[in-house]
């Protein structure tokens, strides 16, 4: 992602992106570091770390497109999970109504 990208200014449905806890969580017990999710994601959410035990991390969590969980479908060992969509929708609605 280029430096012109400013996560502070990003919003989703009028809610600051940073207020929405939507991004993948890696289950390191299941993850086999095949990197398919990273290969898929065009938004640089993941990062590969050479020489570490956790060779893959969620690095740019706010780059993750809210409600998108397509990367999880590329995950053969089913090691990726996302928050509950209903909860997130509720949260977005709450924020919007409080900040009208």
């Amino acid at each position, binding site marked *: *992602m*280029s*430096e*012109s*990208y400013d996560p502070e200014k990003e919003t*989703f*449905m009028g809610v600051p992106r940073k207020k929405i806890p939507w991004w993948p969580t890696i289950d390191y017990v299941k993850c086999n570091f095949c990197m398919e999710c990273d290969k*898929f994601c*065009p938004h640089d959410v993941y990062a590969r770390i050479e020489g570490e035990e956790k060779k893959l991390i969620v690095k740019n969590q706010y780059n993750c*497109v*809210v*409600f*998108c*969980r*397509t990367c999880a*479908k*590329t995950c053969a060992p089913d090691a990726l999970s996302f928050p509950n*969509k*209903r909860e*997130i*929708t509720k949260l*977005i*609605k709450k924020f*919007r109504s409080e900040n009208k």
Partner: protein
Amino acid sequence: MDKKLCVLPCNGIDKSLGVVARTVALKLIEKEPEMNLICPVLLNTSDERYETILKESNIVIIDGCMTRCATKLVDERNQKIFKRIFIPAMSKQFKIKPGTNLELNENGQKLAEKISIEIIKELKASEYDEISIEKKLEEFDFYEITVDKYYFQVPKDGYFFNENDCWVKPNGNTALIGISDYLQNRVSDIMFVELPKVGTEIEQFDDVGSFESVKTVLDLISPCSGRIISVNKDLKEHPEWMNQDPYRKGWFAELELKNFDEDWELLMDGSGYFKYMKETITKEKEEMDFKN
């Protein structure tokens, strides 16, 4: 080009709206004697009886209530559909209430007559030629932006969008959903579609099916909640329609809306989405130039 038409009413005899459905069908046959009448009960018990007719015809489906028995009877077929009629929606549209009497009162008769006239009108207007396309293809006004040689269009009216670049086009208490011109441009040539199952209940922002291009696979993220009542089976054969005509021929699924009044609050209208899309495109361009 086949020009045959048939009509399948739900024929519900326990509700006045079911009786209206049946009456509409009878009036259609009366006005257009060439049209074939399909009996839902017979279709259900021995569907081979209607095999040839259904294969050769476009169908008018008339449902009297939310159970949508007539729709369900043809859902699993690859049936060419001319029009779906949902009597409660029509009753609302014409502001005629048929009451609850199973012997149709004057209002009930009037409603059936109006609906049948409406269908015939549409039939004539279509000149039969367009009717093999399941959803009516209306011309629409759109906003447009050109970036290099690519055009990005957004319909001005009738469509609502989420920030995941998917649209919903409500019509009474049903709606079509699909992907925006911008999204189809981004994924480029779509080669495969995975359509959702008819009958699936979905919440707003659930993924409903997916589409795959050489570049990527993406889920369609539904802008609204509801139940899938039909899917665009033609996309299996023609996934490129999602690229060529994303707002019309490329529709993905049809929903029975559950809570659109509330869903709507989180959606953008045409002009709102156009602004959002322009910002996205500009941002992408800036990033590209920055890398350059």
